[in-house]
């Protein structure tokens, strides 16, 4: 506490420019901090799995020797379409039994049900949330624009691995993809 900052008699109202500048810097920095929350939030999510987004790894990074064949985890695949995207989107196989540490391939199928070309983009989400920290994909169609010709059907594979360090109490993991219409998102 700055007990010494008591001003002098009669000369009280001098506010130094330096102090004013400091005070102005706080809101300016905090405005920046508001935006910094965006990457911070992503980091936070990566550490805690907060928003259920999945990780991505290179196939070469995965140590196949760490396969834990003593454990079986059930993986459920679900698919949604958001904000009026006229596509049929579904997993080819809805359930899989897997061993942590091994790489698996799953397939989603998407069919355009419109007579115009259409563009969608998929967003993944994993439940339960802590599992997303251990759910990695080596190949995925998500976060990329996918353009379908009228009536086109396309199979979209994902290759994924659930790390062997998945907590013991997680016995079932759900992977969800939502395809969003991104045509309306123009400027």
């Amino acid at each position, binding site marked *: *506490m700055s007990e010494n900052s008591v*001003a002098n008699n009669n000369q009280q109202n001098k506010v130094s420019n330096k102090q004013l500048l400091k005070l102005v810097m706080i*809101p300016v920095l905090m405005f920046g901090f508001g935006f910094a929350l965006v990457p911070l939030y992503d980091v936070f999510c990566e550490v805690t799995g907060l928003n259920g987004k999945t990780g991505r790894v290179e196939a070469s990074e995965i140590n196949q020797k760490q396969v834990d064949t003593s454990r079986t985890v059930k993986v459920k695949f679900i698919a949604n379409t958001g904000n009026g995207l006229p596509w049929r989107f579904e997993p080819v196989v809805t359930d899989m039994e897997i061993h942590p540490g091994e790489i698996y391939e799953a397939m989603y199928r998407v069919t355009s049900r419109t007579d115009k070309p259409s563009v969608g983009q998929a967003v993944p989400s994993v439940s339960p949330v802590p599992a997303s920290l251990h759910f990695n994909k080596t190949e995925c169609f998500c976060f990329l624009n996918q353009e379908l010709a009228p009536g086109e059907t396309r199979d979209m594979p994902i290759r994924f691995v659930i790390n062997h360090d998945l907590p013991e109490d997680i016995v079932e993991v759900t992977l969800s993809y939502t395809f969003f219409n991104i045509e309306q*998102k123009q400027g």
Partner: protein
Amino acid sequence: MSTATTHDEHHDHGPASGLMRWVTTTNHKDIGTLYLWLSFIMLLTGGAMAMVIRAELFQPGLQLVEPNFFNSMTTMHGLIMVFGAIMPAFVGLANWLIPMMIGAPDMALPRMNNWSFWILPFAFTMLASTLLMEGGAPAFGWTFYAPLSTTYAPDSTDFFIFAVHLMGISSVMGAINIIATILNMRAPGMTLMKMPLFVWTWLITAYLLIAVMPVLAGAVTMMLTDRHFGTSFFDAAGGGDPVMFQHIFWFFGHPEVYIMILPAFGIISAIIPTFARKPLFGYSSMVYASASIAILSFMVWAHHMFTTGMPVAGELYFMYATILIAVPTGVKIFNWVSTMWKGSMTFETPMLWALGFVVMFTIGGFSGLMLGVAPVDTQYHDTYFVVAHFHYVLVTGALYSIIAAFYYWVPKWTGNMYDEKLGKIHFWWSTISVNLLFFPQHFIGLAGMPRRIPDYALQFAEFNMISSIGGFAFGLAQVFFLYIVVKTIKGGEKATDEVWEGATGLEFEQLPSPAPYHSFNTAPEVK
């Protein structure tokens, strides 16, 4: 206010005449008055919207308004009350009182003071104009969660965003001014730990303001770019995350609720000792409790989001941190009760409002503790139980303290005593009606009525009707308050310089009533 009638053209210390006095004024008392009037107008405006809400909810079925307009009403009511009524009222009180309390002639940055006020009428005109726009006013709640406030919002949202920016700039400028004043302009001998608690709590509040208002500005800027410039901060389709909006909003929003209650703590800590004729119990623990509440307020934001699907670890942390706030808040309440203990109490109007504050703010605190318990919040979240909680804290808390402050200091401001009988009627009328209004909302919330709905199932009908009746009565009581305010400004029994037997502080001990246009041109001596 009364000085307006006695101005003297040749006198250096009098105010200028006419309308331009108010437009160009740099006097802390004039600006304080402007803030207080703005806040009163906003209170009545937001209150009128609340009347529309309560009228529609008077009975089940839709009788008066369309659901979309109803949502606009809840949205505008919240925004106007938070940013237009409560916050400017506290800034107005700060302007009036802080220089007098610390022995300063004026605020440190008088010209900026003028600006920070005059931005506000424009901001609120802009916000209110959205009601007349095609597509309707913003209807996404005062918390404006994305994507309802981005992809799915009406065009008027851009005006809302700009208005929020202006309010933020005004608040930040006001807060910088207050900090500069408190840090630089204290009279000799007025050490920090001798400052009245109102000054202390405002100093802390001002730091909260400059820390979080810019975060709100950042959030609405991101909304703006999401809406118009193709970014996807909050849009899942583009890889963004709507839940992140809530994190950023509540990082601002939770400190914001303390911005609206800390100055109230300062007011109550001034009034209770006066009428108990006994010094405030635990002054330094009050200061430390205020500071710890402010610091904790940055660490608990996600307790507003227990149902968004946070991981268990996060929910546990935010639950523990939240209920921890009960400790410093409890200390304050215990201190106030101990101040009354073995005092020599009288019950003039300001004391009644202060006692009403302590009782009902505590009830709001209890429901706050209940809401903080994460698993139970599953049932409380987004119901009328929450509505009851924050109205107990903000109406019978913040608003009651503002009204108490008016009655307590208005004799010093105008030189006139208010009418004691009318003041007491105002208190009892308000207190009975406000409990009729908000207490039943606890029950309908627990029984399962979600908030922000224009129509409800039949089993909630009885309590909603009681609540509406209480609402109309409480609304009317504040129109009555307007009458009391005008009457007091126009005249009344002359106040003594001390005003209250047992009042302490420079404004009562060293200034006449009414306080001169420029107080403390020479700094007073503080023992």
